[in-house]
Structures are given as structure tokens and as C-alpha cells.
């Protein structure tokens, strides 16, 4: 593959631009379903796009005493990581035979980067509320990464391979009881990775008034929002690829529609959880992830080893 090809794939399709557009459409679905649940009309279809353009024309403010290079580069780290994750994931979905060994590990690492970017940005912003938000985000990352990696092991054990391509070609993990358990664990971890209710303690708008993002304005804030929207697309797609067989290209349009339906189904579940649950305190969230969720994830791994 030529370098130019790699750059186009990273920047346009299936990387940054494609992920941004689909992610923003997904965030519209999120806001619209939320509005319908609350018996409101909700925002128009182009609302997330207007929001991002609006952030781009606003002034960027850097708080006094903050290291400007770190404060301004944190959003870029998150955006670059989620674009790379989406590129690798979609390459695996489109051409399962061409992926490299261990791309699952790279994906898990890259999907942690946006949370690290939020932590960096919040600690760089010299604001007590942002620091509290950043430290909560850090605890949340430590809480959900363990069960998430355990849950990601289950399809690896089923497919006997750590390549995304082999996992996609094998029969879907949800066909086995251990896969169902692992999917449930991974969905809870996804909710926390997206910092949505009930795990939105890092940006709790009622106590921290924006938390980690409080000092951000203009384009950097827009990039953070864009990263969140792109994660809202990449994370469910990652779970669909890991557990539900992904989207199969080249075998007729029915399989593609089925793949999109799996994705939309997961997104609607996320949105419904976020609209019907109260917020957990950060200590409750960490106890929840290290206690019951890890136990269930371990059980799923043991079941998978036993061949269930």
C-alpha cells in the first residue's frame, strides 16, 4: 500500500471525515431519541453540524497559568486516536483478510486515548472543577478497563486468534452463552467509555458544570465534542464487530442492512440507558466495575475456555 493511500484512508474514508459525519448523525439520533423520551420535539437533523461549525468560529480562550501547548493539543490527541481506531476497525470490516496480527490490542489502546486526552486537557486547564472532573475520569478508566479487556478476551478465545479479521470470519461470539455475558459487560463498559449516564460523573453538569471541559471554548471544545461523537460511532461499531459478526460486505445488500441494524440497535440501547438511569457517584461506579462486572466478565472467560 502506498503512503498516499494510507493518508487518504486515515483522513477521508474510513477515517476522520467519514467517522465524523456518521458520528454527528449518531449524536443527532441520541439527542432526538432523548427529546422523544422527554416528550419534546428535539433538534433538527443538521443540529450537530451547526454546533461544530459554531464552535469553529468562536474565540479560543486559554486560562491564565495553563500550559497552552498541552491545553490546546489535548483535543487533537483524542481526535487523532479515534480516527486511527476507526480506520483500523473499518479496514478490518471491509477486508477481513488483510488485517495485521494483534490489531485488536491496538484498537483497545487507541480507544482508551480519548479518555486520556480528556484527563490531560482537564489537568492542563488550571481549574479546580476541571481537576475534579479529570480525576474522576481517571478513576473511571481504571474501573472499566479491566472488565473491558476481559470481555474482549471472549471472542479471542472463540476465534482462537487475536486478529480482528479472524474474529470477524469466525461465527459471532453472541451465539454462545459466554459471548452474551461478555457483550453485556462490554456494553456497560462502553457506556462508561462514552461517559454517558449513569457513568457521567467526570462531567456531571449539576455539580461540576461541564467538569473536564469547563475551561475549553471555541475550536478545542468543538474538537472534544467531535471526538465524543466519533466515539459514539466507533465504540458500538467495535462491539458489533467483536461480538455480533460485524457488517459483511460483498455478500449482498441484506447483510449490510443487517449490520447497520445491529449498530443502530446498540445505539438505541445506549440512549435508553442514558435516559432512564440516575448518575452513579464515582466510588459506586468503580465498585460496580471492579465487583459484579469483573466477576461476570471472569465467568464469561471461564465459560469460553470450557467451550460454551
Amino acid at each position, binding site marked *: 500500500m502506498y503512503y498516499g493511500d494510507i493518508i487518504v484512508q486515515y483522513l477521508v474514508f474510513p477515517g476522520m471525515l467519514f467517522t465524523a459525519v456518521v458520528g454527528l448523525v449518531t449524536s443527532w439520533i441520541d*439527542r432526538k431519541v432523548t*427529546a422523544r423520551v*422527554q*416528550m*419534546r*420535539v*428535539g*433538534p*433538527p437533523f*443538521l*443540529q450537530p*453540524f*451547526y*454546533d461544530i*461549525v*459554531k464552535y*469553529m*468560529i*468562536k*474565540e*479560543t*480562550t486559554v486560562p491564565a497559568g495553563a500550559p497552552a501547548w498541552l491545553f490546546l493539543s489535548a483535543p487533537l490527541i483524542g481526535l487523532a486516536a479515534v480516527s486511527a481506531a476507526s480506520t483500523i476497525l473499518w479496514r478490518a470490516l471491509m477486508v477481513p483478510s488483510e488485517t495485521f496480527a494483534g490489531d485488536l490490542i491496538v484498537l483497545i489502546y487507541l480507544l482508551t486515548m480519548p479518555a486520556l486526552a480528556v484527563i490531560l486537557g482537564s489537568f492542563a486547564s488550571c481549574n479546580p472543577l476541571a481537576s475534579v472532573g479529570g480525576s474522576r475520569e481517571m478513576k473511571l478508566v481504571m474501573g472499566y478497563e479491566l472488565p473491558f479487556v476481559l470481555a474482549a478476551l471472549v471472542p479471542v478465545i472463540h476465534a482462537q486468534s487475536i486478529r480482528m479479521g479472524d474474529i470477524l470470519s469466525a461465527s459471532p461470539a453472541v451465539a454462545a452463552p459466554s459471548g452474551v455475558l461478555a457483550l453485556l459487560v462490554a456494553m456497560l463498559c462502553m457506556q462508561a467509555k462514552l461517559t454517558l449516564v449513569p457513568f457521567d460523573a467526570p462531567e456531571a*453538569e*449539576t455539580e*461540576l*458544570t*461541564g467538569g473536564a*471541559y*469547563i*475551561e*475549553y*471554548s*471555541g475550536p478545542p*471544545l468543538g474538537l472534544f465534542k467531535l471526538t465524543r461523537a466519533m466515539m459514539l460511532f466507533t465504540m458500538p461499531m467495535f462491539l458489533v464487530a467483536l461480538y455480533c459478526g460485524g457488517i459483511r460486505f460483498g455478500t449482498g445488500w441484506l447483510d449490510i442492512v443487517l449490520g447497520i441494524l445491529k449498530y443502530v440497535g446498540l445505539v438505541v440501547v445506549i440512549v435508553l440507558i442514558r435516559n432512564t438511569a440516575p448518575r452513579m457517584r464515582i466510588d459506586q461506579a468503580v465498585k460496580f466495575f471492579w465487583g459484579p462486572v469483573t466477576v461476570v466478565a471472569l465467568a464469561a472467560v471461564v465459560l469460553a475456555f470450557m467451550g460454551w
Partner: protein
Amino acid sequence: MSFAIQALTRSLNVFHVAGSACNNCDIEILDVLTPRYDVERFGITLVGSIKHADVLLLSGIFNKKSAVRLKHLYEQAPKPIVVVGIGGCPATGLMFRDSYNWDVPPGEYIPIDAYVGGCPPKPEAMISAIVKLIGKLRGG
């Protein structure tokens, strides 16, 4: 009309500052966001940080101490920002006009772009003000 101005007027984030208000205007502002009026239809959302805001809503009067905070808030806000006074108090002081803590209207400290009259103004009046303000921003 450029796409940037259109995007700005279709995605207004509102930050709400209550001076020494009697709380009626604050309740009416929240009414505008409830399902009955639902201004998220027009992309208007309430935010918790001034750094995220495009509109600064004032209610109540600002005494000598809170006026300093108001000035700080206005200076911290990323430009362009629109300042709207809700109710009669930011304009004239109304019933607080003769009280010991009345100083000058907040318009003396920061530029205010629009006033919504009333004590308190109805949600319909605020939506009408939003429509007029958006028209003004778009140069219509």
C-alpha cells in the same frame, strides 16, 4: 448570509446569570426549556460554563459587588457573545430601584444587546425576543 452566521444563530448556548433577582424570571427561563416550549428545536441549550456560552442571560439587579463578577464573566466569555437582559430589573431596577443595594443598571458595566420586558416576561415573550435577536444577528 454566510454559513458561519447561520450556524451561530442556529446553535445558541445560553449561560444564565442571576443577580439579586426575585427568582420569578429564573423560573420563567427554565419554563422556556421545558417540553411545552422546548427551545432545543432551535438549537438553544443551557450550559454550565461561561466558556461554552454564546448568550449571556441576566436577570435581577446587580449591586456593586456582583457587578464586578458580572464584568469578569463578560470578559471571560469567548466572543462573539450576545447579552440579553430578562425582565425589567436589568433595565430599570423596577421594585429594587429604591433599595439600599441598588447601584446602576448592568448596562453601565457591559454592553447589553437586548432587553425582554415584563415582570416576569412570559416564555412566549422570550421566544419572540430570541426570534428578533436572531433576525438582528443575521442582519435582517
